[in-house]
């Protein structure tokens, strides 16, 4: 099918005012204080991170019984062990010995029969049960069956592992993911098993990072070199996203792709053997209803944001995720992962290398302003961010957080 390059109703130039669909959000400036305040940060930890479903990994990290990995969660004041037990069941536990509180597992991942504490040799099964206590007879009334590892709620959606540190979460993972999650089911996450991952610790508030990925307004400026014509066109010079959808706390925007994009020589070569963030020849028929939901011919990808800190950007044939982990009011651990099908040959592996390097370069541009921004936010010279219509997700994100934090409602 020939792709039209002239004006189209969903090319992003149709004059839609997205804020009109969500009048409760208002249109005014929003406060900067939540991005610099230590008090705000503490409230986020207590009222959001310790009570919400958090993505900590994928099931491919636990392929066999006996496999485990550790996720340190300083934002929640804990470290969690994720295990696949002998029976194949996935479980999560606080990484803490029941005896004198030592951290049990010190490496980041592995495979074993038991976890044994380095301090006094207490040993636990992968199901968290206390199996062995050295010199046990010297304890008085030791109730071993009550001294297992402290469990953490864990659940899996489309292969993504989530935990919730609230022992009685007010909602299930399915409820938390809601319509956004339901619409993504059927995307080939389970087929895209090759993962390339980067991480970095940035001196910026976690919302400053997250907001940087929740609008495309920055694309023609920050990415003018790495992505000069992939997400912009003469008809859509400001990279207007063509569809937005806000749910209770999650949200999505569908990002415009330029059908007239001119691939570079190596890109052209790479695209013969695999997908990338800028490849355009996709098979719309295979996509579940929540992916390119308006079935636009200008679709590049959907940016799906799962509250509070997990983004899933789905393309045709590849997807990427962001996890933004708050460490301090002005410090964030940012994890990026990009996924492809397992390469069957060297050409496919070469194609993936190009795709991930191009993505990496764009991410290095994305990250380039954030510490400078944070340093100026700290100056206090300005009190507010000014947002335009295409920054709807930034506005919604801040409102959802404030609704849970209640900083501006406090006495």
């Amino acid at each position, binding site marked *: 099918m020939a792709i039209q390059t002239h004006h189209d109703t969903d090319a992003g130039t149709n004059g839609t005012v997205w804020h009109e669909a969500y009048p409760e959000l208002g249109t005014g400036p929003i406060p900067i204080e939540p991005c610099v305040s230590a008090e705000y940060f503490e409230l986020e930890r207590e009222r959001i991170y310790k009570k919400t479903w958090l993505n900590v990994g994928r099931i491919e990290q636990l392929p066999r019984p006996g496999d485990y990995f550790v996720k340190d969660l300083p934002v929640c004041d804990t470290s969690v062990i994720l295990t696949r037990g002998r029976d194949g069941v996935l479980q999560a536990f606080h990484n803490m010995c029941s005896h004198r509180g030592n951290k049990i597992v010190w490496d980041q991942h592995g495979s074993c029969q038991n976890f044994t504490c380095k301090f006094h040799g207490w040993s636990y099964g992968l199901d968290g049960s206390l199996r062995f206590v050295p010199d046990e007879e010297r304890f008085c009334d030791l109730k071993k069956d009550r001294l297992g590892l402290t469990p953490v709620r864990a659940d899996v959606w489309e292969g993504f592992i989530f935990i919730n540190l609230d022992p009685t979460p007010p909602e299930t993972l399915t409820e938390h993911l809601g319509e956004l999650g339901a619409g993504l089911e059927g995307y080939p996450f389970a087929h895209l098993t090759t993962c*390339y991952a*980067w991480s*970095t610790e940035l001196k910026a508030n976690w919302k400053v990072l997250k907001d940087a990925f929740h609008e495309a307004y920055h694309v023609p400026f920050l990415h003018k070199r790495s992505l000069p014509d992939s997400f912009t066109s003469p008809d859509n010079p400001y990279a207007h996203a063509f569809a937005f959808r806000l749910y209770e706390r999650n949200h999505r925007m569908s990002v415009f792709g330029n059908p007239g994009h001119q691939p570079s*020589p*190596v890109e052209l070569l790479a695209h013969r053997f695999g997908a990338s963030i800028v490849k355009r020849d996709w098979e719309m028929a295979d996509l579940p209803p929540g992916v390119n939901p308006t079935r636009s011919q200008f679709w590049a990808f959907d940016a799906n944001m799962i509250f509070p800190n997990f983004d899933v950007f789905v393309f045709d044939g590849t997807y990427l995720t962001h996890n933004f982990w708050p460490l301090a009011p002005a410090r964030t651990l940012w994890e990026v992962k990009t996924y492809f099908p397992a390469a069957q040959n060297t050409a496919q592996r070469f194609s993936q290398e190009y795709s991930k*390097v191009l993505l*990496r370069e764009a991410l*290095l*541009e994305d990250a*380039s302003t954030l510490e400078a921004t944070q340093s100026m936010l700290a100056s206090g010279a300005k009190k507010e961010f000014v947002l335009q219509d295409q920054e709807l997700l930034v506005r919604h994100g801040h409102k959802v957080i404030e609704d849970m934090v209640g900083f501006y409602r406090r006495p």
Partner: protein
Amino acid sequence: MPEARLPEQFRDLEQWIGWSLETEGERSDRRQASAMEDITAFYEAMLARMEEVLPYLEQFSLEELPDDAKRLFYLTLSLAEVAPAVEQFGQPSVVDGYDIKRFVASHR
């Protein structure tokens, strides 16, 4: 004669053998430490041979590449590494980019 390190029909690429590196970290380090003229020369030499290189490599499975083919394969990964420097930035590093040394890969 030094021992040949690439398959016979790709001996013309021997001069670029220093780019035959196994990990993204090594390839990126070399790119960042290289002069743009060297990066561009490597890019052009590799790109000119890719239509022969890719079919040649296709006869082997990824897991069982002979050593000389593996070195050639790593050269293709370095082409992917340097492509943005040549095609997008006109310099080894991302223009005004975040420090790549701080952007730590946990893959190879």
